[in-house]
């Protein structure tokens, strides 16, 4: 399981939307393999009878009342936008233009 190839990293980088050079992919594959090797015993420690803990302190039913609160103005919303037009966030084309 700890075998991590350059292609594996390329796939993960695509999923994570981080461009990587060939050098980076190769280096990352090596580092990841070492880390994954060192953490693989985790899967052997706990049996099926051990429940998972996703939240350190167990709470439940934390709800908000359905009452309108403060909002940002359009200007505040767009203040940090890298690009905007017509009161909206502007992004490059979503699909390739071919």
């Amino acid at each position, binding site marked *: 399981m700890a075998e991590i190839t350059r292609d594996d990293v390329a*796939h993960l980088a*695509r*999923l994570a*939307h981080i461009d990587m050079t060939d050098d980076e992919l190769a280096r990352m594959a090596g580092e990841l393999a070492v880390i994954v090797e060192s953490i693989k015993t985790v899967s052997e420690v706990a049996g099926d009878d051990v429940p998972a803990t*996703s*939240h350190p302190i*167990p*709470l*439940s*039913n*934390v*709800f*908000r*009342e*359905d*009452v*309108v*609160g*403060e*909002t*940002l*103005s*359009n200007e505040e*919303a*767009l203040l940090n936008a890298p690009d905007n*037009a*017509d*009161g*909206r*966030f*502007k*992004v*490059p*084309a*979503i*699909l390739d*233009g071919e």
Partner: protein
Amino acid sequence: MSALTDEVLTFDEAMEKYDPVLGFEVHVELNTRTKMFSAAPNAFGDIPNTNVSPVDLGLPGVLPVVNGTAVESAIKIGLALNCSIAEKCYFARKNYFYPDTPKNFQTSQFEDPIAHDGYLDIELADGTVFRVEIERAHMEEDAGKLTHMGGAAGRIQGAEFSLVDYNRAGVPLIEIVTKPIEGAGARAPELAKAYVAAIREIVKNLGVSDARMERGNVRCDANVSLRPHGRETFGTRTETKNVNSLRAVEHAVRYEIQRHAAVLDSGTPILQETRHWHEDTRTTTSGRPKSDADDYRYFPEPDLVPVVTNDAWIEKLRAELPEPPAERRKRLQADWGYSDAEFRDVVNAGVMSSIEDTVTAGVSAAVARTWWMGEISRRAKLADVDPAEPGASPALIVELNALIESGKINDKLSRDVLDGVLAGEGTPAEVVEQRGLAVVSDDGPLLEAIDGALAAQPDVADKIRGGKVQAVGAIVGGVMKATRGQADAGRVRELILQRLGVEG
């Protein structure tokens, strides 16, 4: 996008060889005041990026907090769909990058939806009842709205850039997923439409959604696969996304059945993919194939704590549920004594609730139907709006009816009164007063008009005198004309016969 038109078989040809299997994912936008995880308003049609808080923009450092009303709406939908409600359920993150998704993950539910394993009985037009099994209903949040610019007709293909409005981001959604629906055969398209219509009706009846499909309050993804008659295993399915009218649902399912059949007949396997529905051509085109990029890496949302239900809470919500629409229709038809055809017309005209309210206010079912199916529907049709929209209300019908019953106005006058009320001239009584529409009840002016009418038609007067009492109608008509309809026709008839010395 492929420019080629896909081959299709006729629907009948497809049905000769194949059984369709359907599946639906219907997204219902709740009509809560605020969003699923933030206190920003849940409102349609506002200035872009104004119904947003830092949470809705996914700004650094923000945290979600669950809208309790949305959870109760989800439970109510689950109960209305005969589902079991989870004792404990978590929110989960569905990770994927898309610019309309502010955090690049959607907060949804995964392994343990709030409601699961239910069913819905769907009545088709001929009264056949078809049971659709519900797999789950889960809570999640809507995405923002993308507008594609610089290309053709707002399409994503060929666009130069897109604009994002996050007002809709975070609006509460309930996604309702069916189990595979088998055995509908040639009625699959009809069932598809009836199923989505039933969901829409239920959530509207519950009051948890505005259920306006044209606004995207109810959106349907339709899954279709075919298998040869007699085969147990399912074929490969396609998912047609965002089919957003009842008619389109029917057409899209029909089209995909025909297209699948042609593909299968040619010996080619079906590609598992999403399809886009095009209303203009009534066809689907290839969307995105299923790929390893669809690895959503779900995990329990650490920023939200689980929802834990108990019997007392669920039973309290169950007690708040309104009568299911199908049962309500059955009850009302029986109460009102309408024929099947009459009742269907009332339902199709969308005036069932208005009639119910009118009857509750004390008008007979027959009279209520005459009003809503007659004058009011006619006017609505002319204006191309909902019958309730021109301003007619059960209270107005009650008043008009009372004026008629008291003899103050007659049927014909009542239409003028309705005109006056809808034109904003005031209450029915005020309109009667201002337009001078009251029935003429003083015999003096009536006798004057009768004498005039008799003088104008001496031959008719003679016939009546000669015992042809049924001829009196012509004189009554003359009197009504002379009094501009404001006379009580019965009283006029009486007076004419008296005048002519004939026994009625």
